[in-house]
């Protein structure tokens, strides 16, 4: 059986195992693995080892399940099969996330090479020269890609890097005694972390709303600036995929009042070798190496937000930094004005290694090709999606304005016509063997939103299959409403009754809590 000859659809059904919870598999006495024990000579020498604990010896063993090894392995393999990872689906649905292919040669190396997985972060730097060389090289690569001067690989994700940049903005003003600057400006279509992280770092956050162009007008932006502005933290293009062509004027205006400008480039896929933070005047930026630079997302991490700054801000970066003295690489902790640390040790080194390998395979031309093809793919999809009944493009202007790597669409018309909105379409799409799409960050400014991002990894046939599924779902909404109402039909589970759990008596985030709620012994 292959895909339907005419429609190109699959008769897909995701694995559905009705798999028990791990606790329900417990058989008293079963063992999953036997850890090493102390040799008899050691026991002779020190005894049972635990009597010294006295009252602190655990009195009641933790109620972990007792499950044999084959069953544990099978349990988790089944759960993996009930997960639509990018490796098994066309995952162009999750705009802003850049779900690109993570090359297997990189994955195999970082998962298996003892010179990475068996390295302790506190080893003498002389015994980590290979890894430190790679850190040093990747910093040089990102310098070229961003135009900024120095990078830290410590933050453990994109939001973490934005937080670390907010910390540097704080340290910069504090170092100058300019402590009245307690406001940070962002835009509503910038990622939520551009508002949340400065708040965590102690700033009041001003969020500017878009006008009919999709971004805040320059006048409104200038009106928000003052001697209290510490910095701006924004994306461009924003979530909508719209690029603000006057960004440099915004940055210049912020600089004019003494603020720093931080560019959220979590997703920089359209920009590699095409446009840089430097030319737009930014003081700092960050790249998600687990998005743009091919490292996988791992069910939400481990991840890495590489944080870049101009040379004037180098002294505030987290410690340690990898430096080179002409003959050897070393870890430099000597930075008295540093913000300190945002993560333990050297950050997620395996992601730095993946980035190194990916850039080394593409080079200058290949990176530009990745950017350009991601934009081509998106504009190809854009033309086709525009023709789907029920779809509305916001900020279209009727002038054929294109987008770069992603588009925020709306099912507003579909909702008006059929009563089905974006959540209904989303429930149905995984029946086609496709990961359901990302709607929008909150709040939904664009009604009934969805945000695909094809990046460069998928071929034309993949794009056509995805677009075809959307076309078919639109047709079903208009012509076969019953098909939509019951969706998903082919997933690992049926529709969840209450996906938003807000009442205390319904909250069960662990087995212990679940048993309490259900009065299970």
């Amino acid at each position, binding site marked *: 059986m292959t895909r339907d000859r005419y429609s190109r659809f699959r008769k897909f059904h995701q694995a559905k195992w009705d798999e028990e919870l791990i606790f329900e598999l417990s058989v008293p006495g079963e*063992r*999953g693995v036997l850890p090493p*024990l102390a040799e008899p000579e050691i026991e002779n020498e020190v005894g049972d080892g635990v009597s*010294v604990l006295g*009252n*602190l*010896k655990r009195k009641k*063993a933790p109620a*972990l399940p007792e*499950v044999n090894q084959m069953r544990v392995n099978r349990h988790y393999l089944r759960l*993996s099969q*009930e*997960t*639509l*990872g990018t490796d098994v689906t066309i*995952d162009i649905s999750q705009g802003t996330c850049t779900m690109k292919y993570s090359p297997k040669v990189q994955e195999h190396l970082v*998962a298996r090479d003892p010179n990475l997985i068996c*390295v*302790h*972060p*506190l080893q003498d730097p002389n015994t980590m020269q*290979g890894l430190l060389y790679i850190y040093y090289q990747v910093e040089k690569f990102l310098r070229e890609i961003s135009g900024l001067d120095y990078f830290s690989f410590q933050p453990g994700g994109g939001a973490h890097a934005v937080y670390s940049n907010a910390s540097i903005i704080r340290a910069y003003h504090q170092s100058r005694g300019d402590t009245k600057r307690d406001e940070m400006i962002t835009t509503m279509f910038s990622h*939520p*972390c551009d508002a949340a992280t400065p*708040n*965590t*770092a*102690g*700033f009041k956050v001003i*969020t500017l709303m878009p006008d009919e162009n999709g971004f805040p007008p320059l006048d409104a932006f200038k009106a928000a600036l003052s001697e209290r502005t510490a910095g701006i933290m924004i994306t461009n293009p924003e979530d909508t995929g719209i*690029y603000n062509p006057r960004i440099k004027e915004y940055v210049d205006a912020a600089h004019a009042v003494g603020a720093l400008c931080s560019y959220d480039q979590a997703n920089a896929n359209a920009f590699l070798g095409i*446009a840089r933070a430097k030319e737009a005047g930014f003081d700092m930026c960050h790249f998600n190496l*687990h998005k743009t630079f091919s490292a996988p*997302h*791992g*069910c939400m991490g481990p991840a890495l937000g590489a944080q870049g700054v101009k040379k004037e801000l180098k002294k505030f970066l987290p410690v340690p930094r990898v430096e080179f003295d002409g003959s050897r690489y070393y870890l430099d902790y000597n930075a008295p004005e540093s913000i*300190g*640390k*945002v993560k*333990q*040790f*050297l*950050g997620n080194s395996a992601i730095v*290694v993946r980035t190194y390998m990916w850039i080394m395979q593409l080079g200058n031309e290949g990176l530009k090709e990745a950017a350009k*093809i991601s*934009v081509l793919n998106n504009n*190809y999809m854009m033309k086709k999606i525009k023709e789907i009944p029920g779809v509305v493009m916001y900020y279209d202007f009727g002038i054929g304005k294109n987008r770069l790597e992603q588009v925020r669409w709306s099912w507003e018309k579909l909702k008006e016509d059929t009563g089905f909105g974006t959540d209904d379409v989303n429930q149905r799409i995984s029946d086609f063997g496709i990961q*359901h799409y990302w709607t929008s960050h*909150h709040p939904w400014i664009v009604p009934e939103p969805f945000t695909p991002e094809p990046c*460069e*990894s998928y*071929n*034309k046939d993949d794009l056509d299959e995805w677009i075809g599924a959307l076309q078919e779902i639109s047709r079903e909404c208009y012509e076969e409403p019953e098909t939509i109402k019951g969706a998903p039909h082919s997933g690992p*589970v*049926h529709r*969840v009754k209450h996906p938003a759990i*807000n009442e205390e008596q319904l909250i*069960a*985030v662990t087995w*212990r809590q679940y048993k309490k709620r259900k009065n299970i012994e």
Partner: protein
Amino acid sequence: MQRKGQIVYPYIPNSVPETKQAMMKEIGISDIMELYEREIPAELRFKEDMQLPEPIYDEYTIKRHTEKILAKNKNCKDYLCFLGAGCAPHFVPAVCDEINGRGEFLTAYVGESIADHGKWQALWEYCSLMAELCAMDVLSIPMYDGAQAAASSIRMANRINGRTKALIPEKMSPEILMVIRNYVNSMPAPDIELVTIKCDSMGRIDINDLQSKCSQDVCAVYIENPAYLGTIETRSQEIGTLAKEAGAEYIVYTDPISLGIIEAPANYGATITCGDFHSLGIHLHAGGGQGGFIAAPDDMKYIAEFKDLMFGITETIVEGEYGFGEVLYDRTSYGARDKANEFTGTSTGLWAITAGVYLALMGPKGMEEVGTTIMQKAQYAARKIGQIQGIEIKTNPPFFKEFVVNFDHTNKTVGEINQALLNYKIFGGNDLSCEFPDLGQSALYCVTEIHSQEDIDQLCYALQGIVTC
């Protein structure tokens, strides 16, 4: 042979010239740069080439190239490693690697439970298994690392009771302290004051000093147990009582691999338990295998203050079928932006699933055995090392996994000794002489279940040789 013509990149399928042409024709352009030119003004475009190395196109060569670079590292497979300080070498069951290597888990992201049901269940089970270990009811999905968990725990306490002073031990993990210091900083100045509690030289809390500082403005009493220097805080119950009497939260940072044999902090009064689950089935990864957790009681005053996503088990439209949903989503910054309690984001999901697999494999008996083995081997190692002339073990029992070895009477620095140990293919303990100068030339040695008696004896042999030469 040279590759001729335009390169078709294996990871960029539409770089095939004919495909590219067809797609450009479809959208009415003749050059992809036209799409950029309409959007990005010329002065903002970068028109030069990035100065990057010549690419290595083929898969075989890039692998060999990278392996050759990494081969300049020494590793803990070829060397005996006695380094810990928050990242200790432990036994990693093969099933852990099997599961975290699955492409579906490796490459999944934020899919909802209708398509990613397995991911939601695996992460919910991680929370559940950790909850049993911690004897606490509530966990969120994981955090960046233990340091983040510690820092966020203190902020939670501050929000819970509105107080602004946190008591922390004088001797604690310097790495964690650095993260906390930055995390409580604010504009214009830190909004939580960190006040240190006096400790003995090995990090046990001075109860009298704690008592004198446990005032009504304290939001939390934070301790590490086992402490950074390996000592087990035997007066942890008394510390909890003092915190409770002051109306403060009692935060205990712990090593989860110890909890099969050491009492769960909740059972001696902790109201918030936090730590790093790296010890549960994850390789060293040069420090990239860390993952943080916070556990708290089943009480809305705690639940509402978690900063990260929480997955709740619920029902689907089919009776008896488990489904999963988001708990209090508007609490997080995904839902509330700057109105959220802190920020959240991508953290360490794959490692959390791995820690869950580890606990499922180990069960209660396995956790008891591994904890006992670590206690025995660490005590054996301390005893044997302490018998070498000129070397003194500073840590008194009970301790877990780590202990302080002092070399003051050897006329050698820790740096010199560690350098000499490399000749024996041994990574000696973490040098404490910079972190805690009052301990003189001391090192923090870490011994776990993976160290055999032969390994420990080999270390002693090497140290003996080094200090007597």
